[in-house]
């Protein structure tokens, strides 16, 4: 097991390194004079020159890349153009806000998704299955920002039950959590249903039935445990995406997280800040995947000996 974990950690490093490299060179591909474009058409020449120096655009690309890596190693992600503060500080101030929202959303999505998926599979072909299937289809089809706006209209404007925007108490969490989780609820529901229907056809389930194990136990003990293995991967994947994918939800509810920071950074073409955000998103994604893989190997011994 220790060897497996160590191997997986080693596998995560090249991906992160590739992301760092790709992100770095992507921003060197800005067509034309990058410094001028970032500064905007009306900016004075000295501002353009300052950006050129800040980004090191006056040096050869490979030298820039080397110093970027060296700085990164020391935890220096550069300075934000717009706020003139260190990028690392900007990120650390907001990371927890996004992380806590993503954690709440993935918890809700897992409970509801697995629950509805199991109901749907157990009552296959019956009205409950049809209702869940349609709900899941609506869930992957509804635009998140529209759902957010509608809930805001109903619960904040009309009923006055929940705060429309901002961050602070648990009441601020309710609508953003639902909004961020809806797609994942639907996605996990569909995965759980299909995975469960697949395991029900496996030999070991048939054996359990033949032994005379009660149907309820067949389902819960023999099928569900195995059916949930692929679901854990999906849950991890969705969670990894949520840390970066909360962009639109955060915008709707004015949530002071990383997603909103990304919108701001892109609108102002604050390149060091965008780069820093991308690194945080990629690192979260790789880390979550690593944890999921380890958890999976823990659950399913077959993986460890592959």
């Amino acid at each position: 097991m220790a060897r497996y974990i160590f191997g997986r950690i080693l596998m995560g490093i090249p991906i992160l390194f590739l992301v760092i490299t790709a992100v770095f060179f992507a921003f060197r591909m800005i067509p034309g004079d990058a410094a001028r474009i970032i500064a905007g058409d009306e900016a004075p020449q000295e501002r353009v020159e300052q950006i050129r120096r800040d980004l090191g655009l006056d040096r050869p690309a490979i030298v820039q890349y080397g110093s970027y890596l060296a700085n990164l190693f020391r935890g220096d992600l550069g300075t934000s153009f717009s706020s003139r503060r260190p990028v690392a500080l900007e990120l650390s101030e907001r990371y927890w806000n996004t992380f806590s929202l993503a954690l709440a959303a993935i918890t809700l999505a897992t409970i509801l998704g697995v629950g509805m998926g199991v109901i749907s599979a157990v009552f296959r072909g019956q009205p409950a299955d049809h209702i869940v299937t349609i709900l899941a289809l609506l869930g992957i089809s509804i635009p998140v920002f529209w759902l957010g706006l509608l809930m805001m209209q109903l619960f904040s404007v009309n009923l006055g039950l929940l705060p429309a925007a901002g961050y602070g108490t648990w009441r601020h969490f309710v609508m953003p959590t639902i909004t961020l989780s809806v797609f994942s609820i639907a996605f996990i529901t569909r995965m759980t249903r299909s995975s469960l229907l697949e395991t029900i056809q496996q030999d070991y389930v048939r054996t359990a039935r033949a032994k005379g194990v009660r149907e309820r136990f067949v389902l819960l003990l023999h099928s569900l445990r195995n059916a949930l293995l692929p679901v854990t991967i999906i849950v991890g994947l969705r969670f990894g995406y949520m840390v970066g994918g909360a962009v639109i939800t955060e915008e709707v509810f004015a949530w002071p997280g990383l997603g909103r920071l990304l919108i701001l950074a892109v609108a102002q073409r604050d390149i060091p800040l965008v780069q820093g955000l991308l690194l945080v998103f990629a690192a979260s994604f790789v880390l979550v995947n690593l944890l999921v893989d380890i958890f999976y190997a823990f659950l399913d011994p077959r993986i460890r000996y592959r």
Partner: protein
Amino acid sequence: MRRRFLVPIGRFMREHRLATFGAVLVLAFLVTGIFAPLLAPQDPNKINVRASLRPPGAEYLLGADNNGRDILSRIIYGARVSLYISSASVGLAALVGVSLGIFAAWYRWSRAIIMRLMDVLLAFPGIVIALTIIAILGRGVENVIIAIAIVQTPQFARLTHGLALSAQEQTYVEAAVAGGESDLAILTRYVLPNILAPIVVQISLLIPGAIMTAAGLSFIGLGVQPPTAEWGAMLQLSLTWGRLAPHITIFPGLALMLVVFGFNVLGDGLRDAMDPRLQGRS
């Protein structure tokens, strides 16, 4: 010939009622987008200050927005923008992704480079990739198309790579190689035609994602720019005006959801029809 083509369609419609409903929604979307100028009752950009935020009624069937522009006409023209962006971006993504996938499968040396690059793109949520491209290229319809195409390219590359790997092991490919045909001829005439069907299904499954991402970008103000009528941009107005006039929130979002729903159920149905083993599973 016509009969041969129509019979399977008839059977598909009987066996996949929901998918057929989806096809109707998709068709309505296509017709609306293509014939927008004929269908829209008003000029979508005509400002009428006195009609500002007017609720649905005889003159403005779905009401008017804060500038007194007809919401129904803006939704109809918005379909055109969505249709243009989604078909262009998914088309571009399919072209690039399928080429990369086939290339990586055939030329072993390129596999690691191409597929690892795709892994990098897949390590981010689509909206983050799209925003990054916008940060590099700037706003505007063309850049939104490029951004979404880059988001979806890995999906096509991955699928195609897997399909091409098994297709190129077939005897007819071996025969073509033995017959001395060029690589290009083998890939375009023997490999590609045999993996086309799942790629078409993939296109129908990815169009809703493209529509949604484009609307999301416009909603946060970094996609299609005002005053162009676009569903996401229309919903952006709701952040300011929504509490005064719920109708400006409800209708554009409903249009967006119906179209995405239509594509999703149609895509599901097509996938099931192609692979009966998956029937009713997902």
